């Protein structure tokens, strides 16, 4: 360990002030802090500081994403080969196929995203933003498997530059960057982002192969043939990371146990969705409205979105009461969009982006409400004493 530290220190010299490579200091710093926890301390006044910094917070989220990612890779292979008769359905074969399909997407996402982060950090002289560690993994996981890599790259560029850097980098963005990347791809290249051909690997180019998502077929008033157990375990077509609800729940447990994501948002989101579904179940005009509560929760990207993306600490509401409102409305809008707009079979993406935009307003009213309450209390107290 000491050897590594010494090597890093030696390499650091030209990057320090006055050194030859001074302008690349921020880039070097990013790699250094990735290896070692930075040892600078607060300079002014007393602050309570946690031992865990942003980089390590992000790593926990990445770890929480891994079950969903691994299952996603397996499911890519499963969806593909289960449609080809007489193919090898052994675990390793299916997983291997998916692994080699998903890996390039992850590499492209990280290479492009971190490339931009480093470039901006050195250009603007701010620290390299760790936020992309999570976004970079989330983006491939919420895309259909067959999206061309250059489209992925453009979506990443859009999300990082327009979604994050123009607002001032990590911690300043209004919208969740991963969802922004998906929304950009969704509106830019709809043929590659929706329909019943994109969710199964190679289905776009192979005749006879297809796989509508559960919500996609429901939107066309067709009852899907998957069992509730299939939906829970994730043997259904969908974006790479979203299908297995079991894997997502494992991730949710990790996030809640470590206290990194807000359980309030997750819980209120699910409550919001359940209430909305029950209301629509009572109306029951079409297949989507008749779909049961459990099934509604288990299909589509809602659970993935509410666990990993609605809880994004930057773009979500900050106050506790605000989080309840925010989560509830995410659930409400997700189901409403699902049911009323067949062009967008899943509403989680748009619902969260919408609520991201509203989150500061929610916080404003929550904080103001608290101030008003205290003022009122002060008034009545002073009246009593007078």
């Amino acid at each position: 360990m000491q050897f590594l530290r010494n090597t890093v220190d030696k390499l650091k010299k030209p990057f320090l002030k006055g050194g030859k490579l001074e302008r690349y200091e921020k880039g070097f710093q990013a790699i250094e802090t990735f290896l070692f926890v930075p040892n600078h301390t607060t300079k002014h006044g007393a602050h309570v500081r946690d031992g865990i910094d942003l980089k390590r917070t992000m790593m926990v989220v990445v770890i929480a994403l891994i079950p969903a990612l691994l299952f996603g890779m397996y499911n890519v292979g499963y969806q593909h080969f289960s449609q080809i008769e007489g193919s090898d359905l052994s675990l390793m074969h299916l997983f291997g196929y998916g692994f080699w399909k998903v890996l390039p997407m992850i590499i492209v996402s990280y290479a492009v995203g971190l490339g931009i982060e480093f470039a901006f950090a050195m250009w603007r002289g701010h620290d390299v933003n760790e936020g992309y560690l999570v976004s970079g993994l989330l983006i491939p996981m919420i895309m259909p498997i067959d999206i061309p890599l250059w489209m992925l790259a453009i979506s990443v560029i859009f999300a990082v530059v327009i979604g994050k850097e123009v607002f001032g980098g990590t911690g300043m963005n209004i919208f969740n960057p991963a969802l922004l990347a998906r929304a950009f791809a969704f509106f830019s290249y709809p043929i590659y982002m929706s329909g019943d051909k994109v969710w199964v690997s190679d289905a776009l180019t192979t005749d006879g192969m297809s796989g509508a998502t559960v919500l996609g077929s429901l939107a066309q008033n067709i009852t899907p043939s998957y069992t509730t157990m299939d939906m829970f375990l994730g043997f259904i077509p969908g974006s790479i990371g979203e299908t297995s609800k079991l894997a997502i729940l494992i991730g949710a447990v990790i996030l809640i146990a470590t206290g990194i994501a807000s359980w309030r948002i997750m819980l209120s989101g699910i409550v919001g969705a359940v209430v909305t579904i029950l209301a629509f179940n009572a109306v029951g005009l079409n297949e989507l409205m008749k779909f049961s509560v459990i099934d509604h929760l288990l299909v589509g990207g809602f659970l993935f979105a509410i666990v990993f993306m609605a809880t994004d600490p930057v773009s979500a509401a900050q106050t506790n009461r605000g989080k309840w409102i925010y989560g509830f409305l995410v659930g409400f809008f997700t189901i409403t969009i699902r049911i009323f707009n067949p062009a967008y079979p899943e509403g989680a993406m748009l619902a969260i982006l919408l609520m991201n935009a509203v989150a500061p307003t929610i916080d404003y009213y929550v904080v103001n409400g608290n101030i008003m309450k205290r003022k009122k209390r002060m008034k009545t107290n002073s009246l009593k004493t007078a």
Partner: protein
Amino acid sequence: MSDTNKEGLFSKSNIKLITNPLNDDNPISVQVLGICSALAVTVQMKNAFVMALSVTAVVAIGNVIISLLRNYIPSRIRIIVQLVVAAALVILVDQILKAYSYDISKQLSVFVGLIITNCILMGRFEAFALGNKPWPSFLDGLGNGFGYGLILMVVAFVRELLGSGKIWGFEILGDPLKKTGVYASGYVNNGFIILAPMALILVGIVIWVQRSINRKLIEK
């Protein structure tokens, strides 16, 4: 009040009236006026060009008329007078377009009529023409029209190229349906860039780039 200190027609200060709105005082990217039409008509360069031409004509001629009338307009009803002048000119432009380039007129549809509500018009009438002589007002109108047109053309260039693979109607990237040219390699047109939100983002990027070059525009 003597008119003896006559300036040349193209004196330095007059030339500035034209060049300023192109960069330092651009109606779209600095004053942020006329955004609505900038989003609506920039899907194709041809349409954007015609729109820019129409706005330039209306602002320049309108400026001259308002400037000629400036001493006779009671200030309480000046907005109405300005609107009447603008409306008359816009109807003229609309009729000319319908007569000579019906296709483009149809594509621009309501947006020609909506030039009346373009903030650049009222802005220039109110801020410049009411207080200046006809010739400088004319130049100011031209300059602002050009500044508006410049941004429109830049945005339209990007939108037409990436959104439909064309420049000024020519398919320079190949045919997207027959998969020729660039499309043969799997390239696809971007559907988002044709929608209005992307135009807004593009105008934002123009503002960003302009301020990175022209640093004095950055607000403190």
